């Protein structure tokens, strides 16, 4: 189908996308790590519960930890070998449980049987069994998302990739167009919808052209505007529907899935392959050779950096994820997981590390807020410790933490920090009040 142009949403920012560093690098397969450190917390919900023991032999793709609760997901061995330890490790500043697997190099695989002419229920069951989570970053279990409580009529594939630097979805869309399309059809079948839209930002014309080949998928050219990849905004610009506050996209009859998730669904249905590897973009000005790599879960970040030629200069910031929403790393002692979309090493010129200056009250944060909030109110009242007023006047609880306000702030105020603090305080107060 011919691609159509989408409208823009009010506010938002224009970030220098910096994608040219890695967007022309075809994906490479990263060699298996000698030892994989597989996190048990690989979804939004509770961490999974380990079902293997120390010393047990596992195959690639074997279930090693069971989901605990509705929004948790199964975890699979990413390499074949022996479980050497189940322990707590420091990971980006938090203690987390890990299953440590020492590879034996055999490469033995254990997949589910492939499905042929799968029914909707079979697809749903397979998605749950394969531990598929949203690969855009939030790691929300896909099985929950495709079982909406309200009827839906549209599936939107999110190929916006509005974060600067990241090119993993872009590469996937170019190299595995067919698989993404088939995965989207499986998802549509599971949901019982016929309308499939794929939204791609205008800075990826080759990907848009690739998706024009299918009759049943409508490519939509999204304006280059951050945060276009936000669920609420991609729904608004492609369908004109607004998702209410505290409502789910399904309440507006829409389900949004990342393109990488669609690819994982295709692999799960056709090959029976569980989700244990993904494309990670390694980029930034301080990395010798920016690359897009197929990486097994549990690969140490240190090995990724070394595989890309190491540091070309001393980085000012190391980031896991995109530069607008990712987590700053204090060291390379971190391991990839299902939602690791990128590892970025930013130079002194690229990374923001200025001292904050007094707030000018310029209101630029409110001007760019895609959710139409008032971040300066949140910052002002939370600094004074009045979190209730902060949340009320800033409408903080609706914040999607896209970081647009802090990006634009001429005084470099730590607005996201204030917003997170306020959100945590309000939630804590609500919990206290509930008891």
């Amino acid at each position: 189908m011919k691609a159509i142009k989408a409208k823009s949403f009010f506010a938002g920012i224009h970030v220098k996308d910096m994608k040219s560093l890695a967007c022309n690098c075809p994906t490479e397969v990263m060699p298996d790590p000698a030892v994989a450190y597989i996190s048990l917390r690989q979804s939004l919900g509770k961490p999974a519960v380990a079902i293997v023991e120390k010393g047990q032999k596992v195959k690639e793709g074997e279930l090693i930890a069971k989901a605990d609760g509705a929004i948790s997901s199964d975890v699979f061995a990413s390499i074949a070998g022996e479980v050497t330890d189940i322990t707590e490790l420091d990971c980006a500043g938090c203690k987390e449980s890990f299953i440590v697997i020492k590879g034996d190099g055999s490469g033995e695989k254990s997949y589910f049987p492939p499905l042929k002419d799968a029914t909707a229920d079979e697809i749903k069951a397979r998605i749950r069994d394969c531990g598929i989570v949203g690969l855009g970053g939030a790691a929300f279990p896909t099985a929950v998302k495709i079982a909406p409580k309200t009827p839906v009529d549209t599936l939107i594939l999110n190929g916006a990739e509005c974060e600067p630097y990241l090119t993993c979805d872009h590469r996937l869309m170019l190299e595995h167009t067919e698989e993404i399309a088939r995965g989207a059809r499986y998802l549509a079948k599971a949901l019982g919808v016929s309308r499939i839209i794929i939204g791609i930002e205008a800075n990826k014309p080759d990907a848009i052209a690739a998706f024009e080949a299918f009759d049943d998928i409508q490519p939509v050219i999204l304006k280059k505007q951050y945060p276009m990849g936000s669920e609420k905004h991609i729904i608004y610009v492609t369908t004109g529907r607004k998702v209410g506050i505290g409502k789910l996209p399904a309440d507006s009859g829409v389900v949004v899935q990342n393109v990488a998730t669609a690819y994982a669904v295709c692999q799960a249905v056709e090959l029976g392959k569980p989700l244990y590897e993904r494309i990670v973009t390694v980029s930034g000005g301080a990395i010798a050779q920016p690359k897009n790599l197929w990486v097994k879960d549990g690969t140490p970040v240190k090995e990724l950096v070394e595989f890309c030629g190491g540091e070309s200069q001393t980085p000012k910031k190391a980031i896991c994820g995109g530069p607008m929403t990712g987590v700053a790393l204090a060291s390379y002692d971190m391991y990839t997981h299902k939602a690791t979309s990128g590892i970025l090493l930013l130079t002194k010129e690229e990374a923001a590390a200025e001292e904050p200056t007094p707030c000018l009250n310029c209101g630029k944060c409110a001007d760019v807020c895609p959710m139409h909030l008032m971040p300066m109110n949140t910052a002002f009242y939370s600094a004074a410790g009045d979190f209730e007023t902060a949340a009320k006047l800033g409408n903080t609880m609706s914040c999607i933490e896209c970081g647009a306000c802090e990006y634009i702030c001429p005084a470099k105020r730590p607005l996201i920090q204030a917003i997170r603090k306020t959100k945590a305080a309000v939630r804590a107060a609500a919990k206290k009040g509930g008891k």
Partner: protein
Amino acid sequence: MDSSIVISTPPHVKSKRTTKSIMLDVIIALLPAAICGIIFFGVDAFILEITAVLGAVATEFVYFFIEKGGFAKKCKNAGAVCKLWWKQFDYTSIVSGLILALIVPPAVAWYEILIGAIFAIAIVKMVFGGTGKNLVNPACMGRIFIFISFASVGTWIAPNFDAINASEITTGATYLSGALLKGNGDAMSLVDLLLGSGLAGCIGETCKIALLVGYVYLCVRKVIKWWQPLLYVVLSAFLSVCLAAIPEDGVSAGFDIALFPAFALSGGLMFGAIFMATDYVTSPKGVYGQLVYYICLAVLTSLLRYLTGIEVVSFVILIMNLFVPLIDKYIVRKPFGYKREKKVKEGK
């Protein structure tokens, strides 16, 4: 990995815009008006501009020096405090000083504007907490302080730009009162109004072309929103035209749209709209709040101009500055996707 690595909350990339760069843009936008002022009013204007800027910066420095304990322990920390001041110096006091110099008539004495600058920075800005904390526009307040305190401001002199025109100048405070009294717009040609030639007025307010250049620059650099000054000037001039049509002593001047440019271009309206009303610190945040603010400004300006016949823009901006906290408190935007809850009728 080095120990110099920085850890912080996202976002990890930020725009290159800083308070300093914005203030620098404002200074650049003010320069055409400042230069025109010097051309029209000569060395006096230059002395006033320099005095105001230096006075403002010095006041800020002295206040900061005392506040941070520069004199404590026999001035032991003086060097460190100076360094600290230089680090946090964001050009805002230069902007305030320059604006103050541009909105006073050239007849003001240098010590008068110096006192005005000290008052504007020390009392209006620093006492409230410095940059970003002041309730009202310092330059605006400084001008009003000078106007009320010193008699010399009452005398308006014509610029020496055009000696022939000078003889024709109306003797009123500004062109505005002349136009209002005569009830027609032909008292001064529009070209003169635009260029500011042969016109009595404040140093920076006379040459509208210079102001327009500054306006375009600020819009291009996205320091201000283009519609804000436009809304203020156009609406206020339009309302003034409407008010001029009100019959006086039974004689109606009639609705004459030809008066529109005269009202829009006269007095300090354009300067106030471009450089003073749009001051970040003292204007509301959020589009709806800003709409209310500029509409109120326009209504008050036209109304008070009609009632008093004197130049009221700085007073009006001052009044509305004081309403900004209220506007900010009560006009909170609704988040994206907000739907007004339908009131469910109670009862069975």
